[in-house]
């Protein structure tokens, strides 16, 4: 019998049918011909039958098979996205996924964890950085400073009043320009007297922010010039606290430094400028013409750029104006030029940016680890499904259809994971906001699931789809049909998948190693920070600020002496003191000179922390005296001025030699202050660090509070029980002395210390969570791959055991493979970790970025968990019964 398929096929090519269609057409017509041939043979013999039928095939009508629509339909079916096919594939995918619900649930959870963490972290980055400040179009707001060649580059200063006036009159780059200055005032009536920070600003500042007042108005022309009416704009909080949020507040007056000021406006709740502690805005009444150059206050200047004008353009324009001023007034302005930066950059310290982006990077690593796990899981399933895929391919499914099927399954997993992850992120955000609630976060920070954050979550879901689905999909599409359909070829095809899985695990181990190093460094910092013995007691201490100034120095002196006396007598007070600075506070190092030394330049003078304290200070904070004596009650005005220095000071500036009796003087070259005799040495105390002052144990010197007139005091009272119970009594004492004097910043010492550590605690804690999640995911991934590989080799193990391999041999065999992956992963991860650690330097506390202890622990933990992940499947391998193993298959 002739091969009708060949005959038909040879006549079809000119039609250009698609492969699948051609096969169908050939099959259908060949069947017909076979049947016809069988019948004809009976009547005319096979030769004649063959001739007749071939003649039929050569009929020109055969060439008229319509191909257009069939080809179009075929092309559509191979597209990646086709609703009809997608629906069918989705149903099929859902069936396959739900066939092993537990495994898929774990996969979805792993992805959800990754997506949840990334989304949460992104919501923080978004709420803190990307969303920007709560002003209209905040990106267009610029911050203008002046710099001069006589100062170092980062020593930019405020703009002088005169320069500001010139800028304002001549510039074109800004649609509005405003200047402001900050300072403390005492506000009273209505409400309790309070020492608060206010901003004096020109009316241009409100124009720059473009925020409308909630009530009333902002400043008018004429109000910001000398002699203008005294008016004030209140923040929402000030309005609520002082006027009970009553709209009749407009037109009423408040007392600012004892003078009445009319309230003309109230700003909306979330508005703050330039930071959240400023609660009242007063007009900056300038007189640039009447103020001689070189005098008058310096201003912070903000401006809103005109559209199309860049920061660089603005800087160039102000520079032109600056050089014009410099030519006219060389004595004050020679070389002074303008520096224009974005306002947001100016208020947000760059280390915070880098920290947040580092953290976003870190969680993306967690997500990638989760993706690698799921990719491995899908690869495993792909290996089990090679036969199914082979058959689908043989039945005409295109490679694209196979890829599509796998991607769709990954997509369905990611979809579930994204929904779960978003819910997780919401939980994380609630926890995050709760954790930072009492730490005074920046006023513009608004962390929640913004629409952009949800978009990000969706994007992460897609990333997860591609990252976890693409490898298995492509790998499956490459399967050789012939090999699959032949018997027992599964091992061959799964071999390459196995290699891929192992590579993925190496990648996972490397990523989690990187993360664990970061987490380890942060954890060690947090532990260090919590474990510090600051050198002073913080428990049961009440702190508060009091400011008082009077034209009569005797009255002022009397005020603080009575205050110190009264607070020490309070029932429940063990000890009490006044000082200009509490221990542990922010660093304010200033210059001093040691007698007998000469210093060529201003910057050659040594620096030290300084505080003036009353004798009670040492008892209140339980600070011991190492040598000499403490500040005593006899160190008063008129007696020899004295100082007590700390051990670090001695080490640094006296190289350990005895400093007692040596003399120092506060201030730099121009100082006219009296020489202080060092009378005692105390231990070095802890000081908060900032990005610019990273030393937690700096040199410090204490002087006597009573040897100079004072206008400010930090009260510290050590109580036998809850220190906050003393607050009403302290307020009463101050009110008796002067009803207009405010008591501010009332807090316990413990709370103050906690506040200075919040960033460390929150971010450190987050890193620990990331690290643990990464470790768990990597360990699970390694375990899954090892378990899979062992299950593939049951037969081999059986043979080995039958041939006399001991349990030890089998375990070694399995573990050797795992160990190699762990080793490679660790090497890569350590290198990446060392690089990442450098990014963390700014937030580490007394931990070197290449701390060998942390690196060692990470290696140990990862190897140990990796080995456990190998040992479990290895132990299973030893239990393989050779007889069953050999019979299987």
């Amino acid at each position: 019998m002739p091969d009708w398929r060949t005959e038909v096929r040879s006549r079809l090519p000119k039609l250009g049918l698609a492969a699948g269609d051609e096969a169908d057409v050939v099959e259908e017509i060949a069947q017909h011909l076979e049947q016809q041939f069988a019948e004809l043979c009976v009547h005319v013999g096979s030769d004649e039958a063959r001739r007749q039928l071939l003649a039929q095939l050569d009929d020109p009508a055969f060439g008229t098979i319509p191909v257009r629509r069939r080809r179009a339909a075929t092309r559509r079916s191979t597209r990646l996205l086709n609703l009809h096919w997608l629906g069918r594939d989705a149903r099929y995918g859902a069936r396959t996924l739900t066939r092993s619900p537990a495994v898929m649930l774990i996969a979805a959870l792993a992805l959800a964890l990754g997506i949840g963490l990334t989304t949460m972290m992104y919501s923080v980055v978004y709420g803190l950085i990307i969303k920007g400040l709560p002003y209209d179009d905040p990106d267009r707001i610029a911050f203008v400073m002046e710099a001069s060649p006589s100062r170092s580059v980062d020593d930019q200063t405020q703009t002088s009043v005169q320069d500001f006036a010139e800028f304002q009159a001549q510039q074109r780059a800004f649609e509005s320009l405003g200047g402001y200055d900050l300072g403390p005032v005492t506000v009273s009536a209505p409400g309790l007297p309070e020492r608060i920070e206010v901003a004096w600003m020109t009316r241009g500042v409100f124009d720059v922010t473009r925020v409308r007042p909630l009530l009333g108005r902002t400043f008018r022309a004429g109000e910001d010039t000398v002699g203008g009416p005294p008016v004030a704009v209140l923040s929402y909080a000030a309005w609520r606290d002082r006027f009970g949020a009553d709209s009749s507040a407009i037109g009423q007056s408040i007392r600012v430094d004892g003078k009445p000021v009319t309230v003309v406006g109230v700003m909306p709740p979330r508005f703050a400028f330039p930071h959240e502690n400023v609660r009242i805005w007063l007009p900056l009444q300038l007189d640039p013409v009447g103020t001689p150059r070189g005098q008058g206050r310096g201003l912070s200047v903000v401006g809103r750029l005109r559209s199309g004008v860049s920061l660089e353009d603005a800087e160039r324009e102000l520079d032109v104006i600056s050089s014009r001023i410099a030519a006219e007034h060389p004595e004050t302005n020679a070389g002074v030029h303008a520096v224009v930066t974005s306002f947001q950059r100016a208020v947000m310290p760059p280390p915070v940016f880098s920290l947040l982006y580092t953290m976003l990077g870190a969680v993306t690593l967690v997500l990638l680890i989760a993706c690698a796990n799921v990719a491995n899981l899908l690869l495993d399933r792909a290996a089990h499904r090679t036969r199914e895929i082979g058959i689908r391919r043989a039945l005409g499914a295109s490679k694209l259809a196979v890829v599509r099927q796998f991607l769709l399954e990954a997509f369905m997993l990611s979809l579930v994971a994204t929904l779960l992850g978003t819910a997780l992120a919401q939980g994380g955000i609630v926890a995050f906001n709760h954790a930072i609630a009492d730490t005074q976060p920046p006023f513009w920070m608004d962390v929640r699931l913004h629409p952009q954050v949800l978009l990000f979550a969706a994007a992460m879901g897609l990333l997860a789809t591609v990252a976890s689905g693409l490898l298995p999909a492509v790998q499956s599409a490459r399967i050789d049909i012939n090999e699959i359909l032949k018997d027992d070829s599964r091992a061959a095809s799964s071999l390459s998948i196995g290699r891929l899985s192992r590579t993925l695990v190496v990648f996972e181990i490397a990523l989690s190693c990187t993360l664990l190093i970061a987490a380890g460094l942060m954890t060690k910092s947090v532990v260090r920070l919590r474990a510090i013995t600051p050198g002073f007691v913080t428990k049961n201490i009440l702190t508060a600020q009091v400011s008082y100034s009077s034209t009569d120095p005797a009255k002022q002196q009397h005020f603080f002496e009575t205050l110190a006396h009264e607070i020490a007598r309070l029932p429940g007070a063990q000890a009490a003191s006044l000082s200009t600075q509490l221990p542990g506070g922010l660093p304010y190092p200033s210059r001093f000179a040691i007698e007998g030394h000469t210093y060529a330049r201003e910057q050659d003078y040594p620096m030290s922390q300084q505080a003036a304290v009353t004798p009670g200070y040492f008892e209140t904070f339980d600070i011991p005296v190492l040598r000499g004596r403490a500040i005593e009650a006899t160190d008063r005005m008129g007696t020899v001025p004295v100082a007590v220095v700390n051990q670090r000071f001695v080490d640094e500036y006296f190289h350990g030699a005895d400093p007692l009796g040596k003399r120092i003087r506060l201030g730099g070259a121009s100082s006219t202050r009296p020489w202080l005799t060092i009378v005692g040495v105390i231990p070095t105390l802890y000081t908060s660090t900032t990005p610019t002052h990273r030393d937690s144990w700096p040199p410090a010197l204490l002087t006597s509070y009573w040897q100079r007139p004072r206008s400010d005091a930090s009260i510290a009272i050590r109580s036998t029980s809850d220190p906050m119970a003393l607050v009403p009594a302290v307020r009463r004492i101050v009110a008796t002395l002067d009803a207009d004097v405010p008591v501010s910043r009332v807090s316990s010492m413990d709370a103050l210390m906690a506040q200075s550590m919040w960033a460390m605690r929150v971010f450190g804690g987050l890193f620990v969570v990331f690290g643990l999640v990464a470790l768990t995911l990597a360990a699970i991934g390694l375990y899954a791959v090892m378990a899979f590989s062992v299950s593939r080799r049951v037969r081999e193990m059986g043979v080995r055991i039958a041939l006399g391999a001991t349990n030890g041999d089998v375990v070694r065999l399995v573990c050797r493979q795992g160990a190699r992956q762990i080793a490679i992963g660790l090497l890569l991860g350590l290198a990446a970790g060392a690089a990442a650690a450098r990014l963390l330097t700014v937030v580490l506390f007394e931990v070197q970025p290449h701390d060998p202890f942390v690196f060692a622990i990470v290696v140990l933990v990862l190897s140990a968990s990796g080995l456990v992940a190998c040992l479990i499947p290895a132990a299973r391998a030893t239990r393989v019964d050779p007889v069953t193993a050999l019979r299987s298959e």
Partner: protein
Amino acid sequence: MLTSELKKGSAEFLILSLLEHEARHGYELAKLIESRSMGVLTFHVASLYPLLYRMEERGWIGGRWVEKAGERRRRFYHITAAGRKALDAQRESWREFVTAIGRVAGVRYA
């Protein structure tokens, strides 16, 4: 033997009629047309399949590979709703045509 023109015009009509009540494969259609017409009408593969595919493309009939136990899979054709409509229309015009021919040529059906 009928002229090819006439055959072409009637072929679709015949196939639709044969598929009206049950789905059939190509060979069966060819055999049925041949046997019911007592050999007057025959279809070769070369003319039958292009015709079937064209009708399928037009949406009058649909083809589907069907597997029956113990048999090899075959492509079965069924009539679609559009095919039924076309069949009715063709029956009507055929009836008119035959009537008209009868009136003109005096051919009478028994």
